[in-house]
């Protein structure tokens, strides 16, 4: 009994030390973002400062186009998520209900698509979008993001729809429901946890995507947050407090979203990703 208490304590110490290592960069990001410019280059650096303020955030949002980047990220990410999940719901229903045998080769095809290197796809996308004049447009970004978001959401949703028993469809049919009624009124409500998880995930990967927007937006006002943040590194004199404030603005939405919906996140990863 006593020995296991020591083991427990040692375990906790190890967990807390690892947690510290994992989380320290975020603490440093926050700490730097709150400092005034004059305090950034102090040596030794300050870990807590009486001069903490939100000035860098105000600068980033008013003097730099980060409010605009936030809007761009939001439009493109939400557009991609709504488009992908809607199409995916129809397809998952269609495949599991009408072509259960066809679903398997399709899932294999989706798995391959999910694994395509994005650096390869980015080249034709860049050439095609510039030849039709769609560079710097939300449409181009949403289409490009769908190339990775759609296979992903269809693949995940097929899994969720498979777990809904077919008997339920039969019962609805006997009650006189049409296919569309069955889909909207019976199956979709049952699939809601799956839909939420898939939507969350699609939102996450779209929000965090970088390379697509880097290549497909040449006009600085059309960048998304990830590109805006990374581009600040290339400036002549980097204002690290502003850069870290921008990083917080880019990272906070997904962190908040997922701390509220932690269960969905953990469930989705473990149910979806283990097998594929």
């Amino acid at each position: 009994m006593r020995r296991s208490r020591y083991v427990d304590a040692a375990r906790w110490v190890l967990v807390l030390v690892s947690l510290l290592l994992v989380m320290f960069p975020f603490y440093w990001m926050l700490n730097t973002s709150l400092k005034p410019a004059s305090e950034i280059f102090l040596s030794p650096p300050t870990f807590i400062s009486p001069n903490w303020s939100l000035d860098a955030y105000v600068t980033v949002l008013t003097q730099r186009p980060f409010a605009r980047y936030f809007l761009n990220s939001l439009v493109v990410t939400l557009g991609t998520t709504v488009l992908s999940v809607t199409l995916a719901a129809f397809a998952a229903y269609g495949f599991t209900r009408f072509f259960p045998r066809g679903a398997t080769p399709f899932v294999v095809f989706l798995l391959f698509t999910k694994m395509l290197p994005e650096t390869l796809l980015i080249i034709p996308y860049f050439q095609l979008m510039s030849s039709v004049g769609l560079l710097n447009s939300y449409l181009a970004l949403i289409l490009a993001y769908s190339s990775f978001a759609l296979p992903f959401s269809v693949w995940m949703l097929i899994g969720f729809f498979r777990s809904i028993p077919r008997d339920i469809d039969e019962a609805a049919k006997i009650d006189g429901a049409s296919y569309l009624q069955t889909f909207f009124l019976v199956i979709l409500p049952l699939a809601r946890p799956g839909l939420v998880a898939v939507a969350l995930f699609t939102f996450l990967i779209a929000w965090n995507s970088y390379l697509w927007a880097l290549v497909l937006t040449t006009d600085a006002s059309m960048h998304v947050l990830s590109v805006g943040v990374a581009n600040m590194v290339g400036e002549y004199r980097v204002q690290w407090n502003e850069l870290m404030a921008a990083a917080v603005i880019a990272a906070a939405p997904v962190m908040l979203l997922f701390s509220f919906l932690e269960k969905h996140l953990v469930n989705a990863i473990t149910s979806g990703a283990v097998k594929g």
Partner: protein
Amino acid sequence: MRQWQRRRLVGYAFVGPVFLFLCAVVVFPLSHAFWISLHRTRGLATRFSGTDNYHRALTDEAFWHALGVSVQFTGACVALHMLIGLCLALLLNEIRFAKTALRVAFLTPWMVAPAVGATIWLWLLEPQFGVVNYLLGAIGVIDTPLAWLGTPKLAFMSVVAVDVWRGVPFVMLLILAGLQTIPRDQYEAASIDGAGPWQRFRYITLPNLRYLLVVASTLDIINTIRHYDIIGVMTAGGPAGATEVLPVLLYNTAFRGNRFGEAAAIGVLLLLIVLAFAIFHIRLTRPEHGSAP
């Protein structure tokens, strides 16, 4: 119209949109990438050039160098992901208090955009004012500040470290899920037979996890070998090509060197590598047996 014909038509209506859409956003661009890899553009003139681009890529030392860096980078990252992920999972598996909160906290690096995470690390590793140099100096590990991204060896280690920081949480969560599926009575039986912690790990945990570990590492190899963002942001392949993995070489060839045909050829070669692992992975998980996702 017969019942089954009508049913089939309804089915097409449900799956049709996704099919067309996937053709438009994946299949068509992918075929266009092949097309680009077989053509050469000079100014406004594009002409068919057969396998010239492939020949050029394969005889260019830069390609073989990048392939070597990719193999080292992926090997180091995946090995560390799996090792640290396994250790953390074993550690967390026994903890009941604040279970989900802890998991989500550990998952944070994976939730943040890789490009943003890389930017944070650029500041941490800044040679003059970065906190990593300060902390290591304060505890006496280093005497003089290091230029983490300035020398080939250190730069390679740095990008590996950042990728490990970002990649471990996901592997950890997968392994944690695997650990929970191991029947507890196996451990109880082993304890009764007098097995110590190491024996329990060696003869119960590891055999039970073997399949999961193989699946997870294949998946991890696929994801790491095609990853661009972290190295793209931190070093763009430098210094002296020390971190120029294949995706970075591809990007630099296309968007810095303006040689799209050659870049597409490199991309197709990268695709073949990924495909080999993907086929292995799919054969392993066998979705046709109804296990996916």
